[in-house]
């Protein structure tokens, strides 16, 4: 398992370097540069272009960048001049990962509960309600859920929230997290719920469950101790793609709520042609997505000792 984890992690790092390289080369083909501003005179712009080595052919820039990458140096920002990209991004990484983790918890908690209830009460009204709620949830774009939540919190629930979520008042209070996290996480809970329901229904028909019943175990013991664990395996299969989508979906939600995270910075950096920033954020996202996927795959042997990695 350790070798597996190492091999997969290496593949993640390799993949991240490959795609980041593609982005590195790609952004340099874009028209315009970061120094086309009224406040920068043409001679200053030329100086800056020389300072950032943008006047060199891209293969040489690339070699320099790769060299820096292996020393953990992703270069300086073109817009916030003289500041290392990683220093600038550190607080934003915390914001984005925090939001992502909160959203993933929403997805998992809501999804598993909906799926569990629907699965053990198959074909009863509660199943139909939960299953319909699941399809509805993943058919609502996160910006629609955000809209509804904002409308709700600014009218009916104003007493509770004081509308603290959607103004650009800085980020960092705990009370600001729930609304964006629900907007980001809720759509995918439907996918988790569907998988969970199918898993529960599949497992409930297995022989070992009949044995458990015949031993006189209570329903909660049968479901929680025996069925649940096996039903979680197909859920884990889709958890990787779901986590990926949530992490990148943060891009949209950060823009909606004005949250100063990586996603907003990414779009800004493209628009301002801050190449080092674009490439750095892309690399970080690739690494996060990869690491999340690997860690989720490592859950398999925990759930099912028969699975060896």
């Amino acid at each position: 398992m350790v070798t597996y984890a190492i091999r997969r992690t290496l593949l993640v790092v390799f993949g991240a370097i490959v795609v980041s390289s593609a982005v590195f080369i790609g952004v340099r083909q874009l028209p315009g540069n970061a120094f086309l501003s009224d406040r920068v005179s043409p001679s200053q712009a030329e100086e800056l272009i020389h300072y950032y080595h943008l006047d060199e052919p891209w293969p040489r820039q690339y070699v320099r960048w790769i060299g820096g990458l292996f020393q953990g140096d992703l270069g300086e920002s073109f817009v916030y001049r003289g500041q290392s990209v990683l220093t600038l991004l550190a607080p934003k990484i915390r914001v984005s990962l925090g939001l992502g983790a909160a959203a993933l918890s929403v997805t998992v908690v809501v999804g598993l509960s909906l799926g569990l209830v629907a699965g053990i009460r198959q074909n009863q009204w509660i199943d139909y309600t939960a299953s319909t709620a699941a399809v509805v949830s993943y058919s609502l774009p996160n910006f629609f859920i955000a809209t509804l939540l904002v409308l709700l919190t600014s009218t009916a629930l104003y007493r509770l929230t004081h509308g603290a979520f959607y103004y650009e008042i800085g980020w960092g209070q705990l009370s600001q997290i729930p609304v964006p996290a629900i907007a980001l996480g809720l759509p995918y809970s439907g996918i988790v719920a569907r998988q969970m329901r199918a898993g529960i229904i599949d497992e409930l028909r297995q022989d070992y469950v009949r044995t458990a019943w015949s031993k006189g175990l209570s329903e909660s013991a049968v479901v929680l101790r025996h069925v649940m664990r096996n039903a979680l395996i197909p859920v884990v299969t889709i958890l990787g793609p779901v986590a990926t989508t949530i992490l990148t979906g943060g891009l949209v939600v950060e823009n909606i709520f004005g949250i100063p995270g990586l996603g907003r910075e990414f779009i800004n950096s493209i628009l301002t042609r801050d190449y080092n920033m674009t490439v750095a954020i892309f690399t970080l996202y690739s690494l996060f997505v990869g690491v999340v996927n690997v860690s989720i795959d490592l859950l398999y042997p925990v759930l099912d000792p028969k699975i060896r990695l």
Partner: protein
Amino acid sequence: MSVLEHPAEHRTRRRRGALLANLRTGLRRNWLALLGIVIIFVVLTAAATSVVWTPYPVGLQGLGVPYAGPSLAHPFGLDHAGRDLLSRVMGGAAIAMVVGVGTSLLTAVVGILLGMLAGFYRGWVDTVVSTIISIWYGIPDLLVALLFVVFLGRGLQNIIIAITLTRWMEMARLVRGQTLSLRERDYVEAARAAGTRDRNLVLRHILPNAAGPIIVQATYLLPQAILFEAFLSYLGLGVRPPAPSWGTMAADGFRAIQFAPHTVLAPAIAISLTLLAFNWVGDGLRDAFDPRMRQQ
């Protein structure tokens, strides 16, 4: 061509008949899927109509007070530039359909091609394709699509290519798995023994039998693509305004949410209903094609 090929071909045709029959009974039993079909029909009609006629020209500004609420003349109200929202939602339906269907088809072509190659020839071809797939899964999709659109311009065809670029893996993996299992079947073996060429083996014997799952996957892809385009447009990097993309309209409306919520609700409800309809139909198709699911 040998005598042996005829019975095999006959069997394929009969199976296709059974497939359609399954589809019909399966869908009839599932009223949510039927409701989905009705909604899709409405959206398609709106989209097709918008090409030749909308109540007001889609881009015409200053039809009344900006942000005016729903009224008889403008059932969905007006947006920030005084444009008729009903007309724009109809125009948005056309864009959504083009993106959805276009992506679905393109993904099917790419996925079938790569999946078939990997599953049919196995060996190093399979290794290469599978490795690409697993690396590709680790790429942040929305970021790739954003960059692609920024690089190549925000035209509809670029958006379709960008979304396909992030969504082909599921289809390829599915087709690969199907091909791997189907190529070992007796009737494929028989056709091979009769000297059928690889191309015909794949096109006449394997592909038709993998059609069910491929269609289901393509149906699920459609709403994903529509949603993806809406995300891109919401971020201001989708179809160029003033083209009436639902995502752009929702983003515009979100800024006025405090005093004119209809401007965000109209496009958001349109997109949600469309996605819901396609997901219902997808579920119905899946149940219809997969008898094991139907029994549950």
